[in-house]
């Protein structure tokens, strides 16, 4: 809903903002950390670990964006 100057902007849900930040870190870790461990873990676990982390991060972003604001009371 559009906001006008006389209204307070809708309040962000803190849990969702934190969740988005965690998802961002998870997605970055999936790209940088997991492939870096390839030498130790082997390719299979690296590949599936990366895919799982990106999927998890994407689902998290979708969930937290859909629940970004506090419900009006």
């Amino acid at each position, binding site marked *: 809903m559009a*906001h006008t100057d006389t209204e307070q902007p809708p309040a962000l849900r803190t849990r969702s903002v934190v969740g988005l930040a965690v998802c961002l870190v998870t997605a970055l870790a999936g790209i940088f950390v997991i492939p870096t461990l390839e030498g130790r873990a082997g390719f299979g676990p690296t590949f599936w670990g990366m895919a799982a982390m990106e999927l998890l991060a994407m689902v998290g972003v979708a969930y937290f964006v859909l629940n970004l604001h506090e419900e009006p009371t």
Partner: protein
Amino acid sequence: MDPIALQAGYDLLGDGRPETLWLGIGTILMLIGTFYFIARGWGVTDKEAREYYAITILVPGIASAAYLAMFFGIGVTEVELVSGEVLDIYYARYADWLFTTPLLLLDLALLAKVDRVTIGTLIGVDALMIVTGLIGALSHTPLARYSWWLFSTIAFLFVLYYLLTSLRSAAAERSEDVQSTFNTLTALVAVLWTAYPILWIVGTEGAGVVGLGVETLAFMVLDVTAKVGFGFVLLRSRAILGETEAPEPSAGADAQAAD
């Protein structure tokens, strides 16, 4: 730069990978897109616009990280085919797509205001499309590679079908701004995303008609257009404002969307 270098790229890191030129350019363009969207969205108070900004900033943001990783040779592996040929596969590219393509679809689903079951189905089929494409890229026999490519392409056709039927009919119930933006973005997605399986099949992962340098350049152009171009069209539109209290068309309306 000689013509061959123009075709294949330029080895910026001196590690024998001429495609690093395109990966470096991709990183910079995605970063520019990310910071442009952050600057544009700074201080936005409209509830719905915030949701679009959150998604649309994260898409090129993660893509820039994936491009940077590939630039430095992270997320690349060698796949030996049964013929003995060895392919360099940038599987970090698929990590990027696994995260970003469902979120681009989420933007379209939010525009069309479809229910969460439809959103979940669309995202699930899209993820299946990416994962099967990746399995194909990592397979060792031509039969397996092309079979997984076909599977992935069929999943893509399902995504396209959803966009052009369920989402389009839902968007048709909304304002003219939303319909116009939705149709533009759907056309963009349909054209650009169709190019990916074609590039896969003619590139090194498929028939090998084009080399890794040209393939990387083409993927970079497609990625930047499909993510930054998509975000640019979406975030400039008044369609991202809440429908109920969206102002009448005026010169100031676009500025409100931007601010």
